[in-house]
């Protein structure tokens, strides 16, 4: 028998066994037998007959896998039906309602059914918890672990004036660090450091800036007076390193030396469990493959990870600041749009709208919209916000200069449309749960409809509305497909700055990183998932605190 066929037969056999166990308890009790034995007999019969019949079919008709599965199940169920009928009836006098020993058997049978089902339900929740734990473990295990780090230049190989330094970086003075830079980097790289770290010019301007005099290039910074008129790209290593030392403090210089000269690189990494249990193997692998590498513990979630820009090439250098800011901006717009509109729609539908055909159609459609796949909303967002309303979503109408509509605003509105039905439905439920006596008390005092809604219905419904909003935001924050469709980037050199910026978001980055070939990006993706979960929990706890505050005020 094929393995897959066997699994199918076994599953159906267990189903028949469950059915047999549950039904035979009652039958056995009614016919005067021990209900527990009846259950056992039913369970065994269901399983054994299913398996045997399936085996018989597949032996007689080789290749008829489906027939064997169906036939096995039918035989199992049929055997149970026969068993229920054939079980000898030991009760001589059948009463309409059981009493005495019959009643005790009857109760025992019903209790047994409940116990079996309770065990099954417990298994379901246990299964869910185990799955969740495995999920969390696979994520966490990738965010902390040992890494093999290799330096481009070993710290002890750094030279000043041809002499090795031989001291830890922390102990070097500012002048020594300047000398290290001058002696260990080519002049072109030092120029890049000046343009990048001192004047922070965009990369596109570098070629033009390079040919200009120092006084122009560093017009907002310090430079030695004698170099004022020299063209920037004619300075030598010592002079350029001098400019760096003049404008950066000692710690920045040390960071520059560490990141750019020593250049640590993660060449291999191991998950948490392997790191803890197989240290010797890891040592051996590193000694063989990367003899110069050091083995160090690394947490992929770190302040640097949160605060650094994206790096599309090196997983150990990349941060996710643009994605984090992008997600926060997009969600802020989503909430700002979807919450008031959704609650407003719910108020209208529950408090104002009459019970006519039109409103019933609207109601049905809202319920259906809640189940529409998110990618459809992506297409909608692309058509409406990115294309049709481009003048507004790109910010041209407001004087912003984004080239097209693929902006934070479009993404926020698209996600808002996506969660709008969820918010409306949940808010409606919450408003419907407001006791009518509260409304009547308010009307009875001469309050208008709006006063009644604002003072009584909304505060009372608010905890429920917020619960629905929490669920909706949790949904929105993890959505990837609509963001891809409305043009979310997977790599950005700059942070999104406002509603009219091009954007990226955490799920997009996670999706991107899991598809890159370098192994270390899997660690970065796991770390990004942890950040996403943390963000989700933070937003949810804010909403829960708000909800509890409302609930407390009511009681």
């Amino acid at each position, binding site marked *: 028998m094929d393995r897959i066929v066997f699994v199918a037969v076994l599953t159906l056999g267990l189903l028949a066994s469950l059915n047999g166990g549950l039904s035979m308890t009652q039958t056995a009790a009614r016919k005067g037998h021990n209900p527990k034995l009846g259950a056992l007999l039913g369970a065994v019969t269901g399983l054994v007959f299913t398996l045997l019949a399936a085996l018989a079919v597949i032996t007689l008709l080789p290749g008829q896998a489906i027939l064997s599965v169906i036939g096995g199940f039918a035989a199992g169920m049929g055997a149970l039906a026969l068993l229920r009928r054939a079980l000898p009836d030991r009760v001589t006098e059948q009463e309409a309602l059981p009493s005495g020993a019959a009643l005790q058997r009857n109760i025992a049978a019903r209790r047994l059914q409940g116990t079996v089902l309770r065990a099954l339900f417990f298994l379901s929740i246990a299964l869910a918890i185990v799955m969740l734990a495995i999920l969390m473990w696979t994520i966490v295990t990738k965010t902390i672990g040992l890494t093999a780090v290799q330096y481009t230049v070993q710290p002890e190989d750094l030279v000043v004036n041809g002499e090795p330094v031989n001291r830890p970086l922390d102990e070097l003075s500012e002048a020594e660090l300047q000398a290290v830079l001058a002696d260990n980097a080519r002049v072109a790289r030092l120029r890049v450091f000046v343009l990048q770290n001192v004047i922070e010019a965009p990369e596109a301007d570098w070629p033009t800036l390079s040919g200009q005099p120092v006084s122009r290039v560093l017009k907002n910074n310090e430079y030695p007076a004698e170099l004022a008129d020299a063209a920037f790209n004619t300075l030598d290593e010592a002079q350029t390193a001098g400019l760096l030392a003049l404008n950066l403090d000692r710690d920045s210089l040390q960071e520059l030396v560490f990141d750019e000269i020593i250049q640590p690189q993660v060449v291999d990494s191991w998950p948490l469990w392997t790191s803890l249990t197989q240290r010797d193997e890891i040592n051996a692998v590193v000694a063989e493959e990367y003899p110069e590498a050091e083995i160090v513990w690394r947490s992929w979630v770190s302040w640097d990870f949160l605060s650094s820009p994206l790096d599309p090439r090196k997983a150990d250098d990349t941060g996710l600041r643009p994605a984090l800011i992008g997600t926060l901006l997009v969600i802020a717009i989503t909430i700002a749009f979807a919450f008031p509109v959704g609650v407003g729609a719910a108020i209208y539908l529950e408090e104002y709208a*009459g019970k006519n055909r039109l409103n019933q159609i609207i109601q049905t459609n809202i319920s259906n919209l809640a189940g529409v796949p998110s990618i459809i909303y992506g297409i909608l967002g692309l058509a409406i916000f990115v294309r049709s309303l481009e003048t507004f979503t790109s910010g041209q109408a407001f004087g912003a200069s984004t080239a097209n509509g693929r902006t934070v605003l479009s993404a926020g509105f698209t996600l808002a449309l996506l969660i709008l039905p969820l918010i409306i439905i949940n808010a409606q439920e919450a408003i419907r749960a407001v006791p009518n006596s509260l*409304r*009547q008390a308010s009307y*009875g005092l*001469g309050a208008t409809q709006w*006063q009644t809604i604002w003072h009584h219905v909304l505060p009372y419904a608010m905890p429920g509305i917020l619960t629905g909003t929490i669920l909706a935001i949790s949904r929105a924050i993890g959505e990837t497909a609509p963001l891809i469709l409305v043009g979310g980037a997977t790599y950005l050199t700059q942070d999104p700055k406002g509603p009219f910026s091009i954007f990226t978001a955490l799920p997009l980055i996670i999706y991107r990183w899991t598809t890159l070939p370098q192994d270390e990006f899997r660690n970065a993706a796991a770390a990004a998932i942890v950040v996403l979960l943390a963000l989700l929990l933070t937003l949810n706890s804010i909403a829960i605190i708000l909800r509890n505050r409302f609930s407390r005020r*009511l*009681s």
Partner: protein
Amino acid sequence: MTEGYTNGRFAIETRTLHLYYGDFLAIRNVNMRFERNQITALIGPSGCGKSTLLRSLNRMNELVPGTRIDGEVLFHGQNLYDPAVDPVEVRRRIGMVFQRPNPFPKSIFDNVAYGPRILGQRNKAVLEEIVERSLRQAALWDEVKDDLKKSGLALSGGQQQRLCIARALAVEPEIILMDEPCSALDPIATLRIEDLMRELKSDYTIVIVTHNMQQAARVSDFTAFMLLDEHRAGELIEYDRTEKIFNRPQDQRTEDYITGRFG
């Protein structure tokens, strides 16, 4: 009848009042005049339209969709169902106390101050004065004066109902409609509410719906007996001074009901 208004004898009056829920006639042709500063009780078996009639006196029945009124309810000579009349004003001048105590989930103070506040009263001192006066009138002041910030829901059932009465009094209505105000209360709390109603009578006109005939006999000056007709529409059978209804009813059906032969 006109003289009734000139000397202020009647607080409110219904004329050929019919009330429909959709196509269903719930009340048929009720003509009643409610005497000022008196307690009028509406009695009758369940579903005979007592509460519906009560609610039609301050247009609370309109909150049920599909309700339609035929006839007039006259208040100060003005038909309350005239299109020019605003139901919000009607309810401010004709207050209501419900079957189950329904305080707002707010503090005792905010419960009573709610009515004045929605009418635009913001002055703290004035509100405090109104709250104290209303709670005193409702005989609740002594029990709650030290803890006005406590939630109205933390009070006992009887206290909650007196809070609801205080809340209704705070907007100074002329008439108070009470829809079985004691049916959710124990006998002691019921007695307190009944005492309260007798005290309030000097300042207000009270109309009360009750299932409890002893209560109607104890507390009311006038009693109206209602019954379903053959089409299940509520009808006014007999309306007179309470002692007359309970001692010398004119209608056989009234007698059957109050002697407990049915109902």
